[in-house]
């Protein structure tokens, strides 16, 4: 037992950044590959995610091209099946999680007034392991092709009999390895948040994003290991002749589904809780109002984290669990909508009566609010078990989860990137390009994934590389493909904006958005040690207290 140690880790963060500038690219490279600074590691995570986002996006485009016409013949069945496997795996494991972990890495120590993460070297290890996991998954291509399993790789399709190629082994190993990285990140977040908060920052005074990172990490700790164990079982079956999923020898195909979804559903919340955190920082600042109902928001986050551990089998309504279990998981699924609703209403109440500035972060937060709502509502439809008997594994599901993961996670993450980019680089992103980025993405996104709900209800199953004409699916597939093409320039503009603004952006200053959390107290970009002096905190908005000494927040909390 000891008191909070905010200075721990100081001796481990060197400050080679300034030194490196003069010594050419080798030293720059050495600096970035050996860094243990949470800010650099955070940026590395985000860059890795953007690279994989582009790869996953290209995979999606090729699939949309193939589906443009019925019985189209752009790529064969094999390539298509590999593409959706890699697209799903990439987007979930090597885009979604790393970008959120990266943002968390950058922000958590700054927001709690610490000088680094609790374990800087473990932090670096986590990043490199995650990256190697991604590379290993793609290394499966040397076997002549990626695995063709779908990202949830239902047993016994993963058995040697049905997938003889070693691509499946690469895939499983890659996910095990990156899972180790995720676990180390989660351990690091919890140790940092619980053990290294600035004096006065009790758990009740955490910035909301930090609070969501606690529960994200909690879910990672409980959800990733079962996946790791299940992947180990795949490898044991394939390599050692074990029988976990070997049905003729008594193994079970259900086992994989249960283990995978016990991971898979919390995973969805791992991908959305930090984003709730982003918009819970952005919306108050750009509405110029304190977050409405912080305690209820915090409790709702916690409730989602716990309930999410008991809803996994709503992915399995069609496997013949029986009415009683179906009902149990349907009810559990509906229950998630209550805390999620609470969050939504609190965001609206935060905006209500505010003075809303539509700078780029708020624009994307608006995109998040308006789109995530729809993803949540289609989720309720899927939760109604009998309705799901029709919708499960159809394009409706594809539309639904892209609505949540793009409309929710991606819009929210863009909001966060536009919000904190000035802090990370000292430069503002171009607002003009941001508007182009937003509107192209907004329209392209709706056009891509809206029609999928329709084609799903018209009976189109997912993961088919081709389809017959005459079922009324053509139009909706063509709209989807056109929508995907509309999205392409938006990502290009985003990347261009990131690169160009690095040099040509308007200097940001310490606090360009007139914000309230600790990271805006230090310089942009922050020095390697983050804060010259560890700040003392009295409320959830320490900078509000400084800016309004006559009416500080701590009077009301």
């Amino acid at each position, binding site marked *: *037992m*000891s*008191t*909070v*140690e905010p200075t*721990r880790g100081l001796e481990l963060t060197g400050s080679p950044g300034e030194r490196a500038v003069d010594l050419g690219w080798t030293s720059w490279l050495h600096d970035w590959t050996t860094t243990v600074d949470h800010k650099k590691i955070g940026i590395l995570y985000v860059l890795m995610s953007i690279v994989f986002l582009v790869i996953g996006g290209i995979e999606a485009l090729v699939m949309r091209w193939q589906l443009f016409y019925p019985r189209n013949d752009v790529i064969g069945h094999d390539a298509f099946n590999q593409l959706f496997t890699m697209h799903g795996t990439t987007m979930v494991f090597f885009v979604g999680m790393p970008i959120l972990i990266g943002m968390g890495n950058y922000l958590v120590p700054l927001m709690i007034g610490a000088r680094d993460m*609790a*374990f800087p070297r*473990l932090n670096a290890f986590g990043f490199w392991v995650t990256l190697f996991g991604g590379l290993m998954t793609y290394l499966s291509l040397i076997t002549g092709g990626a695995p063709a399993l779908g990202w949830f790789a239902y047993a016994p399709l993963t058995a040697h009999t049905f997938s003889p190629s070693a691509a499946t082994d690469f895939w499983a190993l890659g996910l095990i390895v990156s899972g180790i990285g995720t*676990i180390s990140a*989660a*351990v*690091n977040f*919890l*140790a*940092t948040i*619980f*053990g*290294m*908060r600035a*004096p*006065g920052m*009790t758990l009740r005074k955490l910035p909301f994003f930090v609070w969501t990172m606690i529960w994200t*990490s909690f879910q*990672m*700790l*409980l*959800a*990733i*290991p*079962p996946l*790791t*164990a*299940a992947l*180990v*079982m795949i490898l*044991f079956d394939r390599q*050692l*002749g*074990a*029988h*976990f999923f070997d049905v003729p*020898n*008594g*193994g*079970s195909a259900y*086992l994989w589904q249960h*283990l995978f979804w016990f991971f898979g559903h919390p995973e969805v919340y791992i991908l959305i809780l930090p984003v709730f955190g982003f918009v819970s920082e952005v919306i108050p600042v750009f509405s110029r109002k304190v977050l409405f109902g912080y305690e209820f928001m915090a409790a709702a986050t916690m409730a989602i984290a716990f309930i999410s551990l008991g809803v996994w089998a709503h992915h399995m309504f069609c496997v013949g669990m029986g009415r009683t279990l179906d009902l149990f998981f349907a009810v559990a699924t509906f229950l998630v909508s209550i805390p999620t609703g609470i969050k939504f209403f609190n965001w609206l109440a935060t905006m209500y009566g505010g003075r809303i500035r539509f700078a780029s972060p708020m624009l994307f937060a608006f995109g998040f609010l308006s789109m995530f709502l729809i993803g949540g509502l289609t989720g309720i439809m899927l939760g109604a078990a009998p309705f799901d008997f029709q919708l499960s594994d159809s394009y409706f599901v594809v539309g639904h989860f892209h609505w949540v993961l793009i409309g929710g996670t991606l819009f929210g993450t863009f909001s966060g990137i536009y919000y904190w980019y000035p802090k990370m680089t000292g430069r503002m992103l171009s607002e003009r390009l941001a508007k182009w980025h937003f509107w192209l993405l907004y329209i392209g996104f709706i056009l891509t994934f809206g029609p999928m709900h329709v084609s799903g209800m018209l009976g189109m199953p997912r993961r088919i590389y081709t389809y017959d004409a005459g079922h009324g699916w053509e139009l909706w597939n063509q709209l989807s493909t056109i929508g995907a093409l509309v999205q392409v320039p938006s990502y290009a503009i985003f990347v261009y904006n990131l690169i160009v603004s690095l040099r040509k952006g308007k200097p940001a200053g310490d606090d360009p958005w007139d914000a309230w959390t600790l990271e805006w107290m230090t310089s942009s970009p922050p020095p390697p040690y983050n804060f010259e002096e560890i700040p*003392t905190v*009295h409320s959830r908005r320490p900078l509000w*207290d400084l800016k309004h*000494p*006559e*009416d*500080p927040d*701590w*009077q009301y909390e």
Partner: protein
Amino acid sequence: MNQASATNLPVPPAIAPEHTLSAPEWGMVSFLVSEVAFFGTLIVTYVAFMGRDVVGPTPAQALSLPLVLVSTLCLLSSSVVIHAAERALDRDEPRLFCFFLAATIALGIVFLVLTGVEWHDLIVNHELTIGRNLFGTTYYTLVGFHGLHVTVGVIVMLIVLGLAINRQVTAAHRTGVTLVAWYWHFVDAVWIVVFLVVYIASRSSGA
């Protein structure tokens, strides 16, 4: 915010020091939570497959208690011994600390050797391999991963012992020693569950 008006401003309450675990301790607790999830999965899988074999041998046929009782005793007593080692470190008795730590390591190694003897018997006399049947599959996976954790613990404690012999483990490293002890207790606790599930429940279920 000038000095003159500062007197009228509200003054925040004093900050009470917060008592909590240290960051490294939180880190170990978090890590162990993830380990619980991992072993939980393997144990649930073992239980789910209990008695579903299509060929023998079954746990009742293959597993024998005497050997595993000895190894269980070794592992459980090592938890007590490492606690004694911690106490010795607290009392600043480095030689006693080294002694107890070495004893813990020895008990861990005995456990591993006995597991090796047991596996040898299973493989040679009962022809039970990981590919033989579901029991073999789940048994070797569960006990194997536990043994891997014991091995890691032994290696870490050997490193600590090496440092301690060189007088490099002092009161300043108390937290590190605590964390190793926590890990070791955890490995013990997992074994208790494994023992109850594998050697008691599945053996006596007649399956």
